[in-house]
């Protein structure tokens, strides 16, 4: 009974136990440092455990952990292969930066008395996302999705102290999110009815060769439900407002992780559960996912150009970026899948950095409109520089992670005989040049209203710069992300066969 054998369950169990303990910590003594430090430490431990898992999976192959020692398919299985170890590391890594980052920002934006609750809820949101990624049991996915969603609704609503629109945004998110999750459950019910099992690997075995309408309907329900959670193009309406009005630190964490996790679930169900060679999934690739991905890329990028609110613009940009990921999935090739996974990881890095920079601006200048960014390069040079690097990464300038994932996507689209997709990817990137360039132009060329402002505190700048550095590092050294993603894609495709 050594700790290493229990490693797969640690990222879940530690924050799950820590969350209620956080509530007990006094929010107003020592300037609220107690819950903050505690939650931050927990997030670091979780990151360490996830990194250890990634290392172990990368060297020794997939891990299957039997919850309570009940063997699958009866018991709940935590199954970690390269694909989810990668997403796990992304989620816990962003959390390990977002928690230390949050202190100054969240104290300025919410009531001090809510601080303990906030950190407890943030931990639970993290548990939910990690659980979705780590589990190998289909119904467990639903439970964890709802755990993360419920705490996210509350976290978004906390923005009400600054702007009451956070409340309506949160309510809309709740309605849409619940519909999405319920669709997902209906889909699971249909798959269960067809197979009598809920273990993903076992579902795959049972579904092999099955191609009746019930399975198809189940797959459709799951795709729509998770599409809603992932803000897949026509179902993205909850997202811009939720991200724009949530407390800045919450937006950092959500933007970098929550939709990516939903995309991961889509990938997992398509490849590991349904199997990509399943005729219906193939049809869904060509006639549903690809067109919607392209429409999302173009439409959301165009809408982003016309946004006045910077965070809302970033949220629309996220809808577009989700389009890239789904486009890669829809190729149905190893390369496309690998490009999707790389972009999933990289996009978490760049959106995390952008939202962090936006949070610094909100803290010091109290504005999140694009107009408020005028002259930022002179007023807050460090923040502005970080924002510009992350923005270039989003556009896809060589030397940043954005370039790597777009390069992979272009290569995949040519290789799978879809040159049109490559042109659309480039077209959408040009739109990104317009909407990010507009802000960069404001920051560097225009005169701002005020003089030089104090930079955000070090607790915010350091995590911001770590993320920016990751944007550049993984843009130059692609060994880790691309290689792992390629191996993960091969493994997923292997699952599908």
């Amino acid at each position, binding site marked *: 009974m050594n700790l290493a054998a229990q490693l797969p369950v640690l990222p879940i169990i530690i924050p799950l136990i820590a969350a209620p303990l956080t509530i007990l910590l006094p929010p107003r003594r020592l300037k609220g440092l107690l819950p903050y430090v505690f939650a931050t430490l927990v997030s670091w431990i979780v990151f360490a455990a996830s990194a250890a898992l990634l290392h172990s999976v990368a060297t020794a192959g997939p891990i299957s952990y039997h919850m309570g020692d009940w063997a699958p398919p009866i018991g709940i299985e935590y199954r970690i292969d390269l694909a989810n170890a990668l997403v796990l590391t992304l989620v816990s890594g962003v959390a390990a930066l977002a928690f230390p980052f949050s202190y100054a920002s969240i104290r300025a934006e919410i009531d001090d008395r809510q601080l303990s609750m906030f950190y407890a809820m943030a931990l639970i949101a993290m548990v939910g996302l990690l659980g979705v990624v780590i589990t190998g049991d289909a119904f467990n996915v639903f439970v964890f999705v709802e755990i993360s969603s419920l705490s996210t609704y509350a976290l978004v*609503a906390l923005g009400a102290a600054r702007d009451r*629109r956070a409340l309506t945004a949160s309510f809309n998110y709740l309605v849409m999110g619940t519909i999405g999750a319920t669709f997902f*459950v209906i889909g699971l*019910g249909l798959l*269960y009815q067809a197979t009598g099992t809920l273990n993903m690997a076992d579902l795959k075995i049972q579904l092999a060769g099955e191609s009746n309408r019930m399975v198809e309907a189940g797959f459709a329900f799951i795709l729509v439900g998770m599409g809603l959670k992932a803000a897949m193009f026509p179902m993205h309406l909850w997202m811009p407002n939720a991200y724009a009005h949530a407390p800045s630190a919450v937006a950092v964490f959500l933007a970098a992780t929550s939709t990516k996790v939903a995309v991961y679930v889509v990938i997992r169900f398509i490849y590991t559960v349904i199997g990509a060679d399943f005729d219906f999934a193939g049809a869904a690739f060509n006639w549903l996912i690809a067109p919607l991905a392209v429409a999302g890329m173009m439409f959301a990028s165009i809408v982003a150009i016309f946004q006045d609110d910077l965070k809302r613009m970033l949220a629309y940009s996220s809808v577009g970026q989700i389009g890239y990921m789904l486009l890669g999935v829809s190729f149905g090739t190893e390369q496309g899948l690998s490009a999707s996974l790389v972009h999933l990881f990289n996009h978490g890095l760049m959106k995390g950095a952008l939202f962090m920079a936006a949070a610094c601006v909100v803290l010091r200048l109290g504005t999140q409109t694009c107009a408020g960014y005028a002259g930022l390069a002179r007023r807050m040079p460090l923040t502005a520089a970080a924002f510009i690097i992350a923005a270039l990464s989003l556009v896809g300038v060589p030397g940043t992670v954005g370039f790597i994932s777009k390069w992979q996507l272009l290569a995949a689209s040519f290789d799978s005989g879809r040159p049109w997709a490559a042109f659309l990817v480039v077209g959408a990137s040009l739109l990104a040049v317009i909407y990010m360039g507009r802000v960069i132009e404001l920051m560097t060329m225009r005169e701002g209203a005020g003089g030089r402002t104090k930079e955000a505190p070090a607790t915010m700048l350091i995590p911001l710069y770590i993320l920016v550095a990751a944007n550049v590092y993984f843009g130059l050294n692609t060994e880790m992300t691309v290689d792992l993603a390629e191996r993960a894609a091969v493994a997923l495709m292997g699952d599908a066969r």
Partner: protein
Amino acid sequence: MDFVTFALERYNYWIFITLMMMGLYIVIARGNLIKKMIGLNVFQTSVFIYYISIGKIDGGTAPIYLPDDLKARTAHAGDHAPSLAGKSEMGAGALRPDESLHDGFDLAGNDLASLTAPAERPDAAAIHAAPAGGANDILAAPALTIDGPGAGADLAHQAADILYSNPLPHVLILTAIVVGIATTAVGLALIVRIREAYGTIEEDELEAADDIAEFGHIPHKPGRAA
């Protein structure tokens, strides 16, 4: 005609689909946030019904392990009939005899009776007619028919053939019900806060208030009454 039978045999799905569509329609069409919440609940409940109905097996009893219970009962049936009655009653009370349970017990009772003493087998119709009498039926059967411990093995063997409903969907949906309650609670709490912040819970008024905050006036949108 075939189609009619096909459709009627699947009546549980019709209930599920109708409720689901009603719920979704309420969520989309109603502007009042409370009504939206209710619609969401109807929608979720339809899924609960769907799950519960797929777990139900015709004539199946509640998935509670019966053989040991029966063995114990038969071993003592001869000399401790009264205390046995008390015990079974307790068990039945804990089970909360609902309809499916009731059927299941009838089934078990009948099997026991036919196995050991066909002559004294109670009339099946009479058992079905007995209102909420699951506990009584099963008590009646062993008391009438079982003579001694010797019958125990046969009975246990027979009990293994009892049809159980599939417990897994029911357990799953218990989880989903809890999630649904939590969602409703969070949603209602949000509505209270919205009402405090805006003074209304009508969606169009909320939108108008947000538009005024954003643009300084209500922008003209086609299809919306001024």
